């Protein structure tokens, strides 16, 4: 793809030598749009997402983002690259004992010197951004509540706001709704899609709910056994594709 925002080439990951979880994945992502990666548990969706910002070290292959190969970056450069990539987690991964505001501002930690961060002296523009984002995600007035006092849906909103605080060029979400009820899941997906559109950045989301993927995604990638078995529009996803992704067919009845 010409001018891809993110290019994954021959990405392989083996946690145990000789047992690859990802088997040479190659994908390109445009500079915008909502991509859903679907597939059964244990098929490497999470590993794929985490290889993009190297929370998991790939075994081989390359991840080209903003004209540099993230896989080859030394520590410091990796840190600078990670500032451009927001990440939303399945279990929210908020710092439980910090306030909502502190959690949001921790999205700016890549830019703030340690002693200033320690003294909570963030630039006013960051603080204004944070309050604005709290309004956007529907948590106005929650700034000084501790993260561990929030419900699951509220926590994930904070998780998303923290990722967006980075002013990222790419937003990743690893099963962001798997711990949430169906109604909240839809709200969280809507938020992810709308924020991606508003900030004009690509959003890549792992999920295993096919209906949710079809409803929100501009593009669906189906994975099975560490390879991509479907890549296209959600409307093109038929029962044969779903069978090749999840295996079996009884569940489709």
């Amino acid at each position, binding site marked *: 793809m010409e001018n891809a925002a993110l290019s994954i080439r021959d990405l392989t990951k083996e946690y145990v030598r000789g047992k690859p979880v990802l088997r040479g994945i190659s994908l390109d992502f445009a500079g915008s749009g909502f991509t859903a990666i679907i597939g059964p548990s244990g098929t490497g969706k999470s590993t794929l997402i985490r290889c993009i*910002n190297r*929370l998991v070290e790939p075994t081989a292959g390359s991840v080209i983002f903003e004209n540099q190969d993230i896989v080859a970056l030394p520590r410091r450069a990796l*840190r*600078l*690259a*990670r*500032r*451009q*990539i*927001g*990440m939303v*987690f399945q*279990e929210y*991964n*908020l*710092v*439980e*004992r*910090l306030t909502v505001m*502190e959690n949001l501002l*921790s*999205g*700016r*930690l*890549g830019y*703030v010197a*340690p002693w200033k*961060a*320690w003294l909570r002296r963030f630039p006013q523009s960051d603080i204004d951004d944070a309050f604005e984002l709290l309004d956007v995600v529907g948590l106005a007035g929650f700034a000084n509540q*501790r993260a*561990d*006092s929030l419900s699951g849906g509220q926590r994930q909103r904070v*998780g998303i706001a*923290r990722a967006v605080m*980075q002013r990222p060029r790419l937003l990743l979400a690893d099963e962001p709704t798997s711990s949430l009820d169906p109604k909240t899941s839809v709200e969280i997906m809507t938020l992810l899609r709308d924020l991606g559109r508003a900030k004009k950045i690509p959003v890549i989301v792992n999920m295993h709910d096919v209906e949710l993927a079809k409803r929100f995604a501009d593009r669906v990638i189906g994975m099975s056994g560490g390879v991509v078995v479907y890549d296209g529009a959600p409307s093109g996803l038929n029962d044969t594709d779903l069978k090749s992704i999840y295996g079996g067919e009884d569940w489709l009845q």
Partner: protein
Amino acid sequence: MNVTAPRVAFPPNWRARAAWIALVLYIVYACSLLDFTWARFMVGLDNGARFIGRMLPPNFTRWEILVKGLTESIEIAILASVLGILLSLPIGLFAARNLMPLWVTWPSRILIALCRSFHPVIVAIVFVKALGFGAMSGIAALTVASIGFAGKLFAEAIEEISLKQVEAVRATGAPFMNVITYGVLPQVFGRFLGFSTYQLDSNLRNSTMVGIVGAGGIGGALFAAFQRFDYDFVCAMLLSIILLIFAGEVVANKVRAIFVERTRVDEE
């Protein structure tokens, strides 16, 4: 009728039983070595009564020595606690196996183990030889003890944190120090505070003792009074030490209370 044996829900643990029996046997053997007789017990009671008789009433006439000893003990305890805890913070972090590579944790763990291996009084003897008599040696000795204790507990507290929270902070591209202050510290702060006040309490008690070997504090005067059979003065000092420890406890609770508001939900 079915004659098969009933199924056993809790199979007997023979090794545990053997260990209990071995413990009981050892206690019986160890007691037999003590040469404990009724006559000795009666003599001991008599000695004890005379000792307590000579302690009363407590003699506070030499209060200058007492106050000087106590203030020096407090000085030793506070300085050793502050210094020890400040040093324990990085050492404990370096010893945490979930955040640090093996080549960092091993030296830190060895250092902590060394600090823990000797009783503060033994360490104090070494420092008295090295630095001479006085509070300086006591501070050094209790600092070492604090590193051994607080360093180990800090490391263990850090090893129990949720790495998911750390991972999230790391994913934002935060530098190492920011990952520590935002991802790690909030998770352990409440427990660190508890360990620190406990360490202050412990140092306060130990600071009244290192004086016995000449490392400053009230212990020197206490030991001298014992040797001169000034039991009424000994009694005065013991009462003062009890007061000091109580006061220390109150201060420690106050310190905790100040932070409790922030960390109330911590003690799940």
